[in-house]
């Protein structure tokens, strides 16, 4: 196996892009990434996307986007793993380069969600869950997270207001990210007064529906220096699964897929959670941040909320999360999210995060989750000296 590095990144602003199509967004991100890498050739393109069939009436994104972006002829395919599609595509790009099947691989994530009314988007996102035994009974994706949150609050005696720091932190960090959807702060009062979606999950517990695309260029680390001044190595790439349905989980609040994926990644990188300088976690809902921090070893069970209330998740804290706004405030264009997360870790490790720079960041982790913890891909990245 070869060591693999990221030599180029490209992203579109996250937003409501009513003037751009799905393939326009993907092309913009891919062209930016190739330009950033100064790569002269591309051997393969992997596209992470969840909802193009249901929301855009378009599948077959590999061929579609490779042609549209001027890469006609390359191997290209779409990868789908619900909200984890982006990192799942990255994982396959990594496998191709590490396994010596390709030298230069572009991995893109793209999602265009805002052209459809919200009930259709809600139904499309519910496809991440069990169609026969969750969605069929009217459980939306938000409702599944609400069931997790209610149970967590009950088991550990945590009031809803204790989740506010996760939304506040994300919004605060989005202010310094020119690509973020919500670059404005929110307060604890805003959190307490937010509209209820599926109680106890309110609007500020939830990440938004939006459009966006992001892309990275991978190549063997041995070649990376020829292209990038600051290549970033992939120290670990690990995927794991859990039951798709919440009712099939042995331990509802354990997020075992995240634990399994993170443990594998720590083993590959030969590190422990203490070595991680920042963590771009999957904060689709505040409860997911808390469960992810616990499953990945940053807090004991039932203590994850304390990392928020104690200020440990802030830039400058013990384990900074959502450093460029996270899913909550940068935005969550579902199939693109896993690539946005990795790009943000790359920016931190290149020391290009501006006002949001985590000082002396050497090792960053990104974790992208599909469904309510059913697919989990963990990537650990390191600045190349």
């Amino acid at each position, binding site marked *: 196996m070869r060591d693999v590095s990221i030599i180029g990144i490209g992203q579109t602003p996250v937003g409501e892009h009513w003037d751009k199509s799905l393939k326009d967004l993907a092309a913009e991100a891919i062209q930016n990434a190739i330009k950033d890498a100064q790569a002269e050739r591309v051997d393969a393109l992997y596209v992470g996307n969840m909802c193009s069939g249901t929301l855009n009436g378009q599948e077959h994104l590999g061929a579609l986007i490779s042609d549209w972006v001027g890469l006609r002829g390359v191997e290209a395919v779409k990868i789908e793993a619900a909200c984890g599609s982006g990192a799942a595509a990255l994982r396959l790009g990594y496998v191709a380069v590490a396994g010596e099947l390709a030298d230069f691989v572009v991995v893109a994530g793209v999602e265009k969600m805002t052209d459809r009314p919200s009930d259709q988007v809600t139904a499309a996102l*519910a496809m991440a869950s069990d169609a026969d035994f*969750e969605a*069929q009974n009217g459980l*939306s994706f938000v409702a599944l997270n609400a069931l997790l949150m*209610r149970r967590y609050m009950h088991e550990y005696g945590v009031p809803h207001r204790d989740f506010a720091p996760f939304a506040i932190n994300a919004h605060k960090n989005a202010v310094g990210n020119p690509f973020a959807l919500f670059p404005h702060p929110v307060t604890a009062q805003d959190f307490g007064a937010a509209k209820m979606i*599926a109680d106890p999950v309110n609007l500020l517990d939830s990440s938004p529906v939006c459009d966006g695309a992001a892309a990275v260029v991978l190549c063997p680390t041995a070649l990376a220096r020829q292209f990038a001044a600051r290549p970033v190595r992939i120290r670990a790439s690990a995927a794991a699964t859990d039951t798709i349905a919440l*009712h*099939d989980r042995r331990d509802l609040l354990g997020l075992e897929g995240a634990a399994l994926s993170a443990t594998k990644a720590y083993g590959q990188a030969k590190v422990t959670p203490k070595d991680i300088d920042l963590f771009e976690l999957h904060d689709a809902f505040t409860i997911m941040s808390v469960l992810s921090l616990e499953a990945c070893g940053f807090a004991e069970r039932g203590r994850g909320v304390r990392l928020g209330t104690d200020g440990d998740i802030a830039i400058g804290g013990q384990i900074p999360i959502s450093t460029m706004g996270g899913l909550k405030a940068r935005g969550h264009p579902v199939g693109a999210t896993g690539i946005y997360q990795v790009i943000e870790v790359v920016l931190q490790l290149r020391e290009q995060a501006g006002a949001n720079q985590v000082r002396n960041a050497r090792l960053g982790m990104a974790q992208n989750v599909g469904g309510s913890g059913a697919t989990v891909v963990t990537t650990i990245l390191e600045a190349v000296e």
Partner: protein
Amino acid sequence: MQRHRYALVGEVCNHCGEKIFPARDVCPQCNAPAKTPYTFSGKGEVYSYSTVHNPPEGFEQFAPYVVALVRLAEGPLVAAQLTDVEGEKIEIGMPVEMVTRRLRDDGDKGTIIYGYKFRPVIVPRASVEAKSASV
């Protein structure tokens, strides 16, 4: 699928005794084949719950409605709607029982899909009085 939805029929694993719902022919506990049908009592208690205000397409007419994870008396969790009760009256641990109700329909000429929902256990008045008398 209909037997699952109308009668809460799952399976029992002959190897380890695990009661399984929904039926999947493979025991999630020990991975042994499990094909023996098992009809659940329909009794259970609320494990977690939420009121859905933004419903998916097809459920608009029911909103707001209450969904829950119900811990069946025999062990498994089931995701379902709660019915005959308002969101603010529900608590974790509340006893519930299965009923068959309309889940959704596809417009005037479409099929109506029925399935299980759960409602609070209705305690007959006589037994309530007997209980109060004994306290």
